[in-house]
């Protein structure tokens, strides 16, 4: 408590000694503050925190009359009484002190009394307060009194707070709540002001705002803090405020409330002679030196800077001498000192926290024509802030302890603790008094400045100015830098200078067509131990002379002496030279680059040895005997040459089994890398995990182990069921469908991957089943260029093998976009596609299908009457005649879906990339088509029908035997067969009378009727039903409908193993005896 008394007297001094004593007291005051703050932080959950707010108020008020207090206590419950008893001692003291000071409490005490007595009376108090404030027309005396009250009371607080934790500042549960609300970043201030305006407006309305305060901080972007008793108040208040995110209201935890309101004084301590950079204005970015620091508290300092010639001034000067005079007279105080300009600048406009390099400073110093001798030496005096890091060797350069050095252990802002050399004593110094320590002869590297990255040897040290002169390794010239900008490095350059593309011990391909290992890195040049005729030769290369970094393959192994397996990283010994031993850095062909242990020579310790003369230190004894057994084996073929073919064949074997990855095989032959699939993100397109995305962990020939993103589960999935996802979000089958033919067409094939999403439909997919829609492609291809039919044929088996997965692939893309379905309906498509794959029908099961087919149905009805002739155009399409509208409309339609499907967004522009595609494939056919393509790629239902009708008109005869038909009224003439008595009856065509008439055996009555084609409609087959083709190139063929996809059916044609995709209008339910499916 004595402490408190001291404070009191001090405080009184302060107030009494009004004139001039302010500043002197300041220090003491600060001290107290800090003390208090510490206390506060140490015990934030002090017992006082638990007190009721009324109690807080009480303390706040300074309960100057014990009587009053007692009276209040009577009114309150026991709890408060007890509480009061607890810290009675302390309070009593306080009260006495307060009593002296709180004489001034006059009118407001009553108000306060009200306020403290109960929460309800708060409002009354507020009302009174407001009235008091409203009384603006008070005379001066009253005003003075008011001021006294206002500030006098504060004094009471002061006293209290000094002796104990200032309860009123501790947020507790009895204080109003603080809520944090998100707002539009940058609008915090507006929001706060808006709230205030709102409050002002609503103050005398029926529903005044009930919140207590709104706070924002510059540092807390996007947040506004509202103080209120209830959340509802906040919500109500927020309704009319813009830029608030209403949904996010959170309560600020008690402990964090003070952080919102606490500001830290930026304690800027400037020293004369230190360096700074100007933040803005004409001299923004310039290095300046602090010339004069004014008395404390000043917001300005005098800086010394290199004057910039103002072009504007210069111009006006030359033009108008009168103005010149004026400008001089108006210009602020600028003093020039030996060429430097000195001017006052606000501290806030300076960036103090900089660390200029020697160049900058020398530039600063040399910028003026100041006397050579006079400058630098004198002004370098106070260099810059040094940032030490643990491990640095430092030396004390100032004060009595000068000369002490050691290794830095801890860096705490400005304090550096280091262990003294040759002792365990730890000493702490201010960073200012320390410098990095180097010895003459040390090999160092420059960290900052224009010499950055250069390495050299220390030749001179100027301790007083902490500058060091070093002899550059590369330029052999002397460089003077600050010790702070240096780093000690080991003899061979460990570092990697900036700009250097290669690092020490990189295996690089050299311009002389050899490889080498970098043993020393200099600015723009490298010392390389290169492998020349089986020996390591040390030579220097410029960066341009290095072609590139060889891909180091850590898995590479080789056989060493005794047929021991050598790997990168093994410790080996040269059997021919016992002294040479080290660690294998790289194995290149039959040579190994070995880094000798600790040997730093010219060659940086790297030497080249033939693998077979290397002994693995770890297995030397074990391998001895073997050495004699078959020495030839080793020398003849390094293991690494044996392995790849093996691997390759394995790989391809698997590939073919799957339908071939042969086309791409070449890619893998070069590098013996693990399956590139590993690590890729894939999506599973079939099976129970369909739709899951995961990363491939392991692969076998057929299977992949995929770690699913969702639950980190690893599942085994056939590779055929995987699609990789590239960075654009496009997916592509993991196992594409290349085959023999793709090998043949390797030229076309190669672009396929890149074409995949773009123009593949024409150029690559047409030829190469390897792309997404392998199974379809051949047929399409067929259609385009009939003469390639033979090749197609030969390809079929393989493509069939692919079939099961490719269509699935296709499906997964296609089904996503209606566009695909639309297009695929075109007759051309059907006509072309003889074969469909079974997987197709998987696609057809999706909802997408259902929707599509629904919309399709009318189309189908309309289009149905199309006869085989309808397809003819499409078939012939690829020929020059193909330019008939029918063709052009159809062909692109058939193709586009496939590629447009994966990315609907492409649909609009997809034709652009594809346009060039046709050129290479069949120029004659395609080029004329191109213009049509865009038109037909965006087909609408209407367009499509249009096309259909054209086809229908030219193809009328579809009747064939053994198909189920339904007798319907002719839609065009509205006439019915036999006056409609057979309408909607179903029968089977048993005999054709003419291409357009036939005998139908009605199913129910077995009656035979002679019906014209126009009264008949083929019965649409259902899935798994036998069908007969009634149109298209496969007309007359039997088969089984495996599935339906939109307007298309997937048909397994009798006798073939192929699946074909045929428009549903081209088939009818087959009722004949012939077995269509085994």
């Amino acid at each position, binding site marked *: 408590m004595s402490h408190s008394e001291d404070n009191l007297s001090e405080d009184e001094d302060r107030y009494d000694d009004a004139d001039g004593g302010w500043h002197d007291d300041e220090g003491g005051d600060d001290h107290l503050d800090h003390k208090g703050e510490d206390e506060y932080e140490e015990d934030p959950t002090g017992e006082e925190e638990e007190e009721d707010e009324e109690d807080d108020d009480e303390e706040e008020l300074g309960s100057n009359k014990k009587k009053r207090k007692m009276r209040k206590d009577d009114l309150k419950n026991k709890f408060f009484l007890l509480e009061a008893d607890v810290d009675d001692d302390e309070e009593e003291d306080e009260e006495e002190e307060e009593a002296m000071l709180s004489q001034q409490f006059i009118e407001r005490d009553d108000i306060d009394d009200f306020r403290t007595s109960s929460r309800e009376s708060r409002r009354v108090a507020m009302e009174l307060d407001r009235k008091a404030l409203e009384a603006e027309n008070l005379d001066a005396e009253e005003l003075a009194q008011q001021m006294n009250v206002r500030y006098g009371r504060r004094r009471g607080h002061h006293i209290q707070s000094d002796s104990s934790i200032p309860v*009123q*500042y501790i947020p507790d549960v009895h204080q109003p709540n*603080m809520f944090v609300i998100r707002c539009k970043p940058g609008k915090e201030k*507006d929001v706060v002001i808006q709230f205030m305006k709102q409050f002002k407006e609503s103050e005398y309305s029926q529903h005044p705002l009930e919140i207590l305060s709104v706070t924002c901080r510059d540092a807390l972007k996007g947040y506004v803090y509202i*103080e209120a008793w209830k959340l509802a108040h906040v919500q109500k208040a927020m309704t009319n405020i813009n830029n608030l995110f209403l949904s996010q209201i959170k309560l600020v935890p008690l402990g964090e409330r003070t952080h919102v309101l606490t500001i*830290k004084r930026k304690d800027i301590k400037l020293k004369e002679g230190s360096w700074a950079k100007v933040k803005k204005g004409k001299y923004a970015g310039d290095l300046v030196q602090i010339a004069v620091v004014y008395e404390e508290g000043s917001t300005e300092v005098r800086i010394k800077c290199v004057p910039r010639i103002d072009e504007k001034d210069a111009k006006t000067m030359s033009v108008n001498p009168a103005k010149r005079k004026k400008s001089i007279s108006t210009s602020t105080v600028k003093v020039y000192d030996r060429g430097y300009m000195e001017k006052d600048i606000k501290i806030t406009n300076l960036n103090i926290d900089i660390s200029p390099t020697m160049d900058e400073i020398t530039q600063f110093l040399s910028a003026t024509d100041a006397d050579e001798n006079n400058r630098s030496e004198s002004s370098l005096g106070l260099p810059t802030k040094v940032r030490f890091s643990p491990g640095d060797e430092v030396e004390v350069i100032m004060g009595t302890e000068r000369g002490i050095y050691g290794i830095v252990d801890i860096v705490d802002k400005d304090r550096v603790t280091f262990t003294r050399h040759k002792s365990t004593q730890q000493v702490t110094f201010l960073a200012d008094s320390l410098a990095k320590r180097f010895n003459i002869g040390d090999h160092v590297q420059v960290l900052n400045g224009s010499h950055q990255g250069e390495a050299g040897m220390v030749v001179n040290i100027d301790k007083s100015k902490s500058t060091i002169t070093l002899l550059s390794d590369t330029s052999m010239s002397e460089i003077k830098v600050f010790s702070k900008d240096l780093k000690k490095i080991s003899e061979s350059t460990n570092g990697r200078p900036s700009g250097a593309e290669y690092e020490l011990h990189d295996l690089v391909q050299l311009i002389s067509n050899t490889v080498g290992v970098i043993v020393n890195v200099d600015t723009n040049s490298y010392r390389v131990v290169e492998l020349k005729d089986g020996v390591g030769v040390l030579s220097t290369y410029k960066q341009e002379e290095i072609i590139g970094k060889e891909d180091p393959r850590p898995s590479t192994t080789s056989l060493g002496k005794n047929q021991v397996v050598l790997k990168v990283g093994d410790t080996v010994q040269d059997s021919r030279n016992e002294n040479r031993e080290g660690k294998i850095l790289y194995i290149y062909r039959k040579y190994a680059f070995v880094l000798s242990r600790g040997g730093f020579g010219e060659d940086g310790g790297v030497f080249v040895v033939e693998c077979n003369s290397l002994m693995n230190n770890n297995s030397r004894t074990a391998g001895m005997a073997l050495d004699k057994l078959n020495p030839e084996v080793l020398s003849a073929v390094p293991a690494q040459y044996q392995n790849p073919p093996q691997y390759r064949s394995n790989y391809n074997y698997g590939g073919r089994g799957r339908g071939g990855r042969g086309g791409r095989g070449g890619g893998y032959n070069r590098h013996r890398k693990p399956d590139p699939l590993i690590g890729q993100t894939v999506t599973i397109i079939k099976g129970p995990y369909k739709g899951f995305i995961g990363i491939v962990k392991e692969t076998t020939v057929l299977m992949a182990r995929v770690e699913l993103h969702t639950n980190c589960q690893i599942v085994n999935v056939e590779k055929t069921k995987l699609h990789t996802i590239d960075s654009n979000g496009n997916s592509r089958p993991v196992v594409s469908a290349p085959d023999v033919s793709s090998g043949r067409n390797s030229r076309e094939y190669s672009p396929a991957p890149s074409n995949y999403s773009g123009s593949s439909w024409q150029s690559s997919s047409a030829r190469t089943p390897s792309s997404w829609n392998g199974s379809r492609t051949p047929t399409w291809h067929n259609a385009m260029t009939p003469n390639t039919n033979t090749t197609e044929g030969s390809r079929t088996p393989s493509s069939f093998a692919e079939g099961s997965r490719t269509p699935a692939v296709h499906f997964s893309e296609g089904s996503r976009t209606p566009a695909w379905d639309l297009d695929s309906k075109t007759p051309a498509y059907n006509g072309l596609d003889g074969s469909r794959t079974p997987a197709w029908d998987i696609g057809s099961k999706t909802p997408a299908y259902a929707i599509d087919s629904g919309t399709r149905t009318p189309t189908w009805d309309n289009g149905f009457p199309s006869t085989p002739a309808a397809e003819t155009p499409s078939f012939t399409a690829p020929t020059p005649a193909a330019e008939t509208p029918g063709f052009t409309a159809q062909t692109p339609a058939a193709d586009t879906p496939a590629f447009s499907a994966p990315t609907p967004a492409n649909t609009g522009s997809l034709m652009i990339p594809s346009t060039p595609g046709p050129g290479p494939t069949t120029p004659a056919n395609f080029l004329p088509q191109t213009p049509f393509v865009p038109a037909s790629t965006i087909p609408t239902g209407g367009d499509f029908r249009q096309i259909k009708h054209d086809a229908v008109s030219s193809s009328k005869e579809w009747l064939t035997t053994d198909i189920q038909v339904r007798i319907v009224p002719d839609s065009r003439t509205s006439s019915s067969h036999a006056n409609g008595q057979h309408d909607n009856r179903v029968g089977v065509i048993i005999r054709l009378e003419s291409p357009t008439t036939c005998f139908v055996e009605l199913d129910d009555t077995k009656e035979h009727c002679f019906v014209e084609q126009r009264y008949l409609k083929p019965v649409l087959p259902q899935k798994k039903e036998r069908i007969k083709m009634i149109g298209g190139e496969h007309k007359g063929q039997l088969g089984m409908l495996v599935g339906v996809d939109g307007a298309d059916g997937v048909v397994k044609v009798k006798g073939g193993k192929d699946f074909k995709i045929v428009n549903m209008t081209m088939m009818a339910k087959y009722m004949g005896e012939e077995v269509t499916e085994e």
Partner: protein
Amino acid sequence: MASVPHNTRQLRACLVCSLVKNTEQFRKEGCENCEPFLQFKRHPERVQECTSTNFDGLIALMKPDDSWVARYKKIENYACGIYAVGVQGRIPELVEDEMAQRNIPYIPRDGSQNLPQN
């Protein structure tokens, strides 16, 4: 009730009480809390000296008596209005002396006297 700034431009904070207003408002209306001794209305040049544009944060103080924020920032006895959380700078010594003469303590708002005091 102190007047509310019209906008967020040209805002200045009183170095004594940290009230925030537009420069113009200070000049015309003075500082609602400190006008008796700062007398901005009579000495408009003082606005430059005794207010600062370099302040941090805003507090819309609606109910000074109830608000913990107000208590914490020691503005609980002031009028409703917009206040700054912190203001860089100090009033000129002359003004400080004047305040001292009137027995009005000066609390720097620059964060140099953080909790707990006064």
